[in-house]
């Protein structure tokens, strides 16, 4: 089987900044590959090299067997790119944006029109199709951008942080579209800062940090290295400790952790949402009152803690939002 993309020993330097330090990765056709990493890890640089926007400093990069440096024109004919920031014109309507890109892919007018209408419909933008994009929400722009990247019917799609900064509803609708593409057999390379997203969409995940791949495998393989989900709650009184310990025993994967000062108990579990429901029922039956009951899924931070022993460096504005989202 042909590789959807193939990176061998790729390095990229911007002056003194070493954005990529020897990246070797490949993915099979029809599969979804996720690059997971914090801000500045080098994800966008990899996507830009594969989509012919940047030439690597050294190493080779192939897309469907075509060298991106030697055959950029051929590569551009088979790829679709939805960059990190929605690349759409504010002053054009949603339809005009997609139609324009269709024409630039070389489609005939009638075909471009037909495909654009189909995509608009499929992306749930029919009502807004004839409105200028400046009236669109962030989620709508992202969907439109995705539409533009699909109008040329690419063999491989690059999605650079497709849901960063979106509300949960918009995220869900992007995921749904990506699922449809997966079902159609499109090869996809996506980048993300959310473990949850890579878990939801990807066949294979590569964790990147400081321009290097530090782990690669399926989502299950990665998660087994992480310890999985935890449930957290706070006791009302230290007197409840022994009965609480008794209650959580049945769901705990390993021994729970208890903080004497904050009265917060953390319980590692196998299956977060199911175990949470079981636990709630048991707490009720034992007539134990607890505060701030919550489920924690491993975040990117936890991945890094597990892989490198370091927390990530990405303390940008989106981080707090991200954290909150991880709690369920």
């Amino acid at each position, binding site marked *: 089987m042909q590789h959807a993309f193939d990176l061998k020993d790729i390095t990229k330097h911007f002056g003194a900044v070493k954005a990529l330090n020897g990246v070797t990765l490949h993915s099979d056709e029809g599969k979804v590959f996720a690059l997971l990493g914090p801000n500045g890890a080098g994800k966008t640089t990899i996507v830009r090299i594969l989509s012919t*926007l*940047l030439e690597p400093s050294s190493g080779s990069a192939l897309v469907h067997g075509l060298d991106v440096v030697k055959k950029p024109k051929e590569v551009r004919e088979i790829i679709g*790119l939805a960059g990190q920031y929605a690349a759409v014109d504010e002053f054009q309507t949603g339809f005009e944006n997609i139609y*324009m890109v269709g024409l*630039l*892919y070389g489609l005939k007018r009638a075909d471009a029109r037909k495909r654009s209408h189909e995509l608009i419909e499929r992306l749930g933008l029919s009502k807004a199709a004839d409105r200028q994009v400046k009236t669109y929400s962030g989620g709508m722009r992202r969907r439109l951008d995705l539409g533009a990247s699909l109008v040329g019917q690419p063999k491989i799609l690059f999605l650079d942080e497709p849901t960063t900064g979106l509300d949960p509803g918009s995220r869900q609708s992007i995921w749904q579209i990506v699922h449809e593409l997966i079902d159609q057999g499109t090869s996809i390379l996506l980048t993300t800062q959310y473990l949850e997203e890579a878990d939801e969409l990807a066949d294979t995940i590569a964790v990147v940090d400081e321009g290097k791949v530090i782990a690669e495998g399926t989502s299950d393989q990665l998660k087994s290295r992480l310890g999985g989900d935890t449930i957290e709650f706070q006791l009302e009184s230290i007197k409840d400790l022994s009965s609480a310990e008794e209650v959580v025993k049945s769901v705990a994967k390993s021994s729970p952790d208890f903080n004497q000062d904050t009265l917060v108990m953390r319980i590692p579990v196998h299956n977060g949402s199911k175990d949470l429901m079981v636990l709630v029922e048991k707490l009720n039956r034992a007539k134990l009152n607890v505060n701030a009951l919550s489920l924690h899924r491993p975040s990117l931070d936890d991945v890094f803690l597990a892989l490198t022993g370091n927390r990530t460096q990405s303390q940008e504005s989106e981080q707090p939002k991200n954290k909150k989202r991880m709690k369920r």
Partner: protein
Amino acid sequence: MNFLGAVRDTWVMSVRNLRRYIRLPQLLFFSSVQPIMFLLLFNYVFGGALGSSVRIPGIKYIDFLLPGILVQMVMFGGVQTGIGLADDMGKGIVDRFRSLPMSRLAVVAGRTFADVVRNLTVIAIMIAVGYLIGFRFNSALAALGMVAIALLFGYALSWVFAFIGMMAKDSETAQLASFVFIFPLTFASGVFVPIQTMPSWLQVFVRNQPVTFIAEASRQLALGVNEQGAIWKTIVWVIGLLAVFVPLAMWQYKRRVS
């Protein structure tokens, strides 16, 4: 990239850029209200004082002014080329264009072609307003010649400003950089007043800078003056500017990482 494909892509990009002119109110203002304002202000505010110094018998100030002010307007229009490209370069949209199997020339060529269409509209508006306040062409052929000169010069300038716009780090810088040399070139020229009225040290500059003789060529065509020196000089300048700035702009477009 085959030639027809490049033409098609350029057309697609031109349509896109024309939409921007029509839909962004500030751009529509710069292309329609501003030129009319300039024409009326200069004609009525300065016209009274300056008219008497235009000592070509039988020529009204508006006949002197209009052909020159057209040249100024295509220069101001060129600044918008630079600003528009600087704006695009700073946004994700250029990444999209670069990732498409389209002609590389089309992004810039579509921009400069849209500006020809825009300039044509501006020129038509100004001539119409000019006619209302007394401007008259010498002949229909003269009219065509004058419009052609202004359009050609405007087109060549669009490539100059395209290059400047893509060198600048953002659209504000592009605007500043453009106006820094556009103001002296348009005002220290023969556009508004006859050169003889200026101090002699200034005349040396004014006589030798292109805007002066391009305005002169435009005026000669409009008035039907039978003398072609300025017209030939203009054509040489247009060709020269294109020969230098088309490759420079393309080089900068390919080079610049957004």
